[in-house]
């Protein structure tokens, strides 16, 4: 058991830190929340800068143009990017962390060479068309129909929770191609160009008041059979490739960010007046913050453990569901602590004092985390059944 970064990791960190310091000032300014074109522009500009500097696709293999970084270098990458407050993946989330890895694992050569370099350069933005109004936790019951007509599939249906749909070029889409087969056996994974006639994007307003998510209405949308990834009716297995990525790596930068936020919260608590002292003088509150810090430390070490196991065995361990479940519930408790520290300042999403509005916005945002990508209840079922071997 060794927690020291290697000399190579430290060299990588130093180089990356120097590059970020030079690159950040060249980035377009942050846009308002609802200016989706500007958000796309900023995130894809950053992606292009990463690409030109050789940092794009940090976890992608070198053969497809990625960095092919070791797992420990990936952790270093997320630490540095987050601590420097450089953009995270943003609108490139699905392309880099879901669709891209799925294409790498499952797609034909023509599909890979068509899309992977474009995703890495920030030229293509992807979204995800998996969930439906009637297919949430029970995703495999999805009903969006695709009927073969010559060289096309003709698709009609309704997707929901599609992030960044309004600025996406492509959608990784799950459709039902065999309605009579058992539900897991009749699903196909398709690449849907978002400018295809019949695709209607309707933004969905979240509790944040903004429109990260959209609904997709698909009305006789024609997608070439050549856009299918994997075999017809084998889409569930293809989709599972994506899920392991979704639960594995995508929380890492969230977690680094949470550690930074907790440090910020302590700073705020030390200046917010409470009674005769500050919020930090409240022993009960302070202990709960210390408790949360211990849990975050432990989770970060658990990530290192999971990553080390994956590096040694080649497969991600059982850690992914455990980290997902624990982290998402913890970050909500930290959000509650922030609201208690802020007291009346929590009534405003605008800053009442330094960053106070950001804490309130975060408290709302993290409500989604215990629901998205497999709800906490689904994670507990997975842990109970697949790890502990309990009967269904």
């Amino acid at each position, binding site marked *: *058991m060794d927690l020291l970064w290697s000399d190579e990791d430290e060299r990588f960190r130093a180089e990356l830190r120097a590059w970020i310091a030079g690159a950040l000032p060249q980035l377009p300014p942050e846009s308002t929340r609802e200016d989706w074109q500007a958000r796309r522009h900023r995130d894809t500009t950053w992606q292009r800068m990463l690409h030109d500097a050789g940092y794009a696709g940090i976890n992608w293999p070198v053969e497809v143009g990625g960095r092919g970084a070791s797992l420990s270098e990936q952790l270093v990458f997320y630490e540095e990017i987050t601590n420097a407050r450089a953009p995270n993946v943003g609108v490139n989330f699905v392309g880099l962390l879901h669709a891209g890895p799925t294409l790498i694992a499952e797609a034909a050569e023509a599909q890979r060479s068509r899309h992977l370099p474009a995703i890495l350069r920030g030229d293509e933005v992807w979204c995800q068309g998996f969930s439906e109004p009637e297919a949430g936790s029970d995703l495999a019951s999805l009903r969006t129909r695709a009927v073969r007509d010559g060289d096309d599939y003709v698709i009609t249906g309704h997707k929901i929770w599609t992030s960044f749909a309004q600025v996406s070029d492509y959608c990784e889409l799950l459709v039902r191609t065999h309605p009579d087969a058992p539900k897991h056996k009749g699903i196909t994974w398709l690449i849907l160009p978002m400018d295809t006639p019949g695709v209607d994007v309707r933004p969905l307003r979240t509790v944040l008041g903004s429109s990260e998510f959209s609904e997709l209405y698909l009305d006789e949308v024609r997608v070439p059979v050549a856009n299918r990834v994997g075999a017809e009716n084998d889409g569930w297995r293809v989709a599972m490739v994506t899920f392991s990525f979704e639960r594995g790596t995508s929380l890492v930068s969230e977690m680094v960010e949470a550690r930074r936020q907790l*440090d910020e919260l302590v700073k705020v608590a030390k200046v917010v007046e409470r009674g005769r002292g500050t919020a930090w003088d409240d022993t009960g509150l302070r202990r709960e913050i210390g408790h949360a*810090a211990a*849990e975050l430390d432990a989770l970060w070490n658990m990530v290192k*453990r999971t990553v080390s196991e994956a*590096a040694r065995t080649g497969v991600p361990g059982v850690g992914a569901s*455990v980290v997902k*479940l624990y982290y998402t519930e913890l970050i909500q408790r930290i959000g509650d602590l922030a609201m208690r520290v802020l007291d009346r300042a929590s009534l405003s999403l605008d800053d009442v004092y330094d960053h106070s509005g950001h804490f309130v916005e975060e408290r709302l945002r993290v409500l989604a985390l215990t629901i998205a990508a497999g709800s906490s209840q689904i994670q507990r*079922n997975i842990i109970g059944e697949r790890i*502990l071997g309990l009967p269904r």
Partner: protein
Amino acid sequence: MDFTLSSDQEALQEAVRKLCEGRFPIGRVRAMADVGGVDRTLWRELADAGVFSLRLSEDEGGAGLGMAEAALVFEELGRALVPGPLVWTHLAAGLIRGAAEGDTVVGGLQRQDEPFLVEHPDVIDVLVAVDDDGLWEVDRSRLSARPVSWPLDPLTPVHVAGGLLRGERRGVPGDAARWRMEGAVLTGAFLLGMAGALTEMSVAYAKERQQFDKAIGSFQAIKHLLADMFVRTEVARAAVYAAAVHLDEPALGPPARAVSGAKLLAGEAATLNAKTATQVHGGMGFTWEVDVHLYLKRAWVLDVAFGTGDMHADTVATLIDD
């Protein structure tokens, strides 16, 4: 960075687990309540296996191993619920004659306000008190103490004592600080092993116990309790192993935050898992016959050894912006 067990560490873990399964089956552990929690023959077997001496150098008769290995050993001892002042005797190895060899059973306590409770009073040969000024060997014969007829944990007999004499100095303040941290991590490791054993016990029971014509483990209300037990244990594991590694590797920085986090989370994992295990076992969980209560009581005993959860949470908090 490779935060997995080396093959040597896996072999050590396996060996101690085998030893515990062979020599400390739960029936024998229960019977040790009649001998004050320590059976001298078995105590020497633990010593022969290196439980007390493993961190001493080879010149001193040890194995030259670190806290990481010691934590793995204590996790296994906790899994088997081995009674006795194991942590104190381990800490005293190399300092108190005969501790490493299993000839001297060393007990200990943190000097605190009176009255205070001395654990395993009838079986310890030496009592060490830890305070901010150092380590002190206390003459037990001069303690005014009265036995508790009914200790919380039947395997942790206690005396209530008043008036702790200063004793003979056995260490400087730096030694005391080190004992506190190492003691917290080893106790945390023991609690971690207990948390894991409780999860396994409860999962096995939930697969076997039938109600409404089904194994109760198929009900989500039970399944989710068990999933949380597993998750809590794994989080505590990451914390305990990391704290041990921090104590072994000074280049990682001051270990206090990792140590306090480990003790806090391991104590919670064991106590919460024991309470959940009681619930999962239903009425049987409330009986003397089922082993769960022995784990719950020990978890409570150890949760207030080497610092309470509240104290450690406060310590982590004060170290956040350091």
